[in-house]
């Protein structure tokens, strides 16, 4: 959109021939781009193939035949994040998704990261992803929109501030305080319910929230405890958890409500994963302990 209006002035300076040449080059680049990014193009073409998939391979109603297409918000380490060097998704949920697909005899396919608050609508609308494994807590409110698998891990919330801050939950509950949260999370709900006086700032991902707390843009942050611990240990050493919020929430895998066959298959695979020790080894890998 910027190029549209802002390019106008510079366009005047270009000769027409120069412009056509440039446009042609740009067009080629776009085409080439389409060819190489298979993961993103598959997501857009998938909507069209949904119907075919559900009719030909009726049992699981997959978006793409032979593939378990999964979606997540990829800024939630250690559950999901992009590997620094390869750019590939990695994390507990990612590995869980891979072994789920393996147990179901499917190929694991991770779609590009999406804002967390858009994941429930995406799964509800269907046609883009088969399921979402994205550290999503099972709540009755979400159950009205989508289905959840059996819980696969327990979690709690954390209230994070800068290490040199004297704030407590009580002092943060004041109108001159800004609390960063990730939009659409249970952490956001907790903040809205318990820090009623403070200004709640919903963000697309927590990394900018953590950065904001460390630079002083926000006074605090509410996020799932495992993520807070991981980030404080690895990246944001200038932050601290002042309160472990005991919510005892449980993460589940989100599936479209109409797709019971897939939900059953996922639950079966999940039970196998828990039974054969895969879950323990995943927990060991990503949390250094079995939960």
């Amino acid at each position, binding site marked *: *959109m*910027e190029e*549209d*209006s*802002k390019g*106008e*002035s*510079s366009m*005047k*300076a270009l000769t027409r021939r120069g412009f056509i040449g440039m446009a042609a080059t740009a067009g080629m680049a776009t085409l080439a781009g389409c060819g190489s990014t298979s993961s993103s193009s598959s997501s857009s073409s998938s909507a069209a193939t949904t119907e075919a998939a559900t009719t030909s391979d009726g049992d699981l109603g997959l978006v793409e035949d032979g593939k378990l297409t999964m979606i997540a918000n990829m800024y939630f380490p250690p559950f999901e994040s992009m590997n620094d060097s390869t750019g590939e998704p990695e994390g507990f949920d990612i590995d869980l998704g891979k072994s789920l697909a393996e147990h179901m005899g499917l190929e694991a396919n991770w779609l590009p990261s999406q804002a967390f*608050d858009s994941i*429930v*609508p995406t799964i509800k*609308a269907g046609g883009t992803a088969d399921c979402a494994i994205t550290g999503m807590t099972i*709540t*009755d*409110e979400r159950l009205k*929109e989508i289905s959840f698998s059996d819980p696969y891990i*327990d979690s*709690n919330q954390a209230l994070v501030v800068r290490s040199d801050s004297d704030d407590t939950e009580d002092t943060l509950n004041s109108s001159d305080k*800004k609390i*960063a949260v990730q*939009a*659409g999370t249970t952490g*956001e*709900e907790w903040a*809205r*319910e*318990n820090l*009623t006086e403070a*200004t*709640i*700032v*919903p*963000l*697309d991902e927590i990394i*900018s929230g953590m*950065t*904001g707390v460390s*630079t*002083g*843009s*926000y006074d605090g942050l509410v996020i799932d*405890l495992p993520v807070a611990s991981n980030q404080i240990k690895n990246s944001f050493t200038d932050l601290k958890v002042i309160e*472990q919020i*005991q*919510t*005892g*929430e*449980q993460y589940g895998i989100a599936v479209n409500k109409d797709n019971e066959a897939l939900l059953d298959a996922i639950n079966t695979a999940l039970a196998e994963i828990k039974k054969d020790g895969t879950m323990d080894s995943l927990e060991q890998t990503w949390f250094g302990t079995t939960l």
Partner: protein
Amino acid sequence: MARLLAAFAVALACVAGMGVAFAAPTEAFALSTNKATARPNEDGGDGVIGGIETRLTWEGTVGGDEEVSSVTLELADGGNFDGSTTRVTVLDGLTRIDIDSEVSTDGNLLKVKFADPIPANSLLRIVVEGMTFPAAGGEQVVSGSYETSGGESHALDDSNAIDTISNTPLQQAVAWLDANPAVQAWNSNRFLGMFLKPQLILTSLSSLFPGWVLCLGIVCAAYPFAILLGLAFSLMKLSRHKIVRAIAITYINLLRGTPLFLQIYIAFFGLPMVGINISNNLLGICVMAINSSAYLAEIFRAGIQSIPQGQYEAAASIGMSRMQTMFSIILPQTVRRVIPTVTSDFITSYKDTSLLSSVGVMELMMFAKNATSVSGNITPYVTAAIFYLIITLPLIKVVGIIERRIERSERGAGPRPVAGQDAGSATDELEAAGASHAEAIERTGLGAGTLEPAFAEEGGVADVR
């Protein structure tokens, strides 16, 4: 008589029993209430409204060495638990304890019966989705009772008060829409219900308003600075001095060549790290002004360069200095030419304020995101679009009108200077009227006789005028 005595004894025992129960707080309470909270259910607000479904979260701790086998929560009369769903969580520290429970509701009572008594020192969390507080509003206290594994029944201490409000006019309008069959039919369509839900359009119009005001405020405050900065850099880029030109080119290319999003991140996260703390809104204005100035500099440069060389020659011929030429001949003509492009840039800048939401500036998109994440519906974004269009559509129209007028005047059909008009404004019209240089000089009242001194040194110009 004996019967009477017996009854008296029972009554006495009861009183004694109650006395013990009431004295209990000083002793160890098996289950103490930590807190009760409710989810805000005011569309586009943060109030808890009575009579409308919301979610109650009650938290208590089992103390001492007692075990609790059932808990009953009680709301004031008018509160309702019927039709709600309940999630019961028992925690030992941060670890869940799996205990099956059975929940039954009866009006303002909710009873949780545990399959096994919950152990001492555990935390009990009861989350009731879809309950309602009394419609009258006011301070709500959750009370109730519990039973220990020994079969004793005690009263729960009252929770903290939850502030609730009675219905607002906006909420009543929403309730009316909720009940309207046409609206229900509209919302039952998946797309319409997700993107154009009338209830949410109504509520988000009011809740997004402050964000819209801030958006407008930021861009309106930023733009005058952007214009001044842009003009300065465009003149610098046209400068004869290499270094000045290099500075301008670097500034313009760096800012035009990087996404605004990145510039915002650098400003909002980078500056505080080097110890510069500016309030969010002011910093937003600065970033928008600086970003826009680079685009405006290019627009002005193109505008200035589009003025035919003849204008410079004509100005030089009447003995104007370079500065004079620029400010009284070239720039006034440039202004008319760049108005459409500048307006387009203003529209872009106005829309681009939305990027500030990513760093916590409470502008329109932030409020929309807020409303969306609370409602789980896309409609607030559509309402935000309406707010953007309120400004952009009229501006686009204005640009169209100006462009048509300029086109007309460039073809020679525009307003011509009237005889007797003063020289200054006549100069403005020179280009528009498509006048030849000779005519122009004649009309400004400078005949052939005055041409000669114009070629003299700059010092001589004053004499000529």
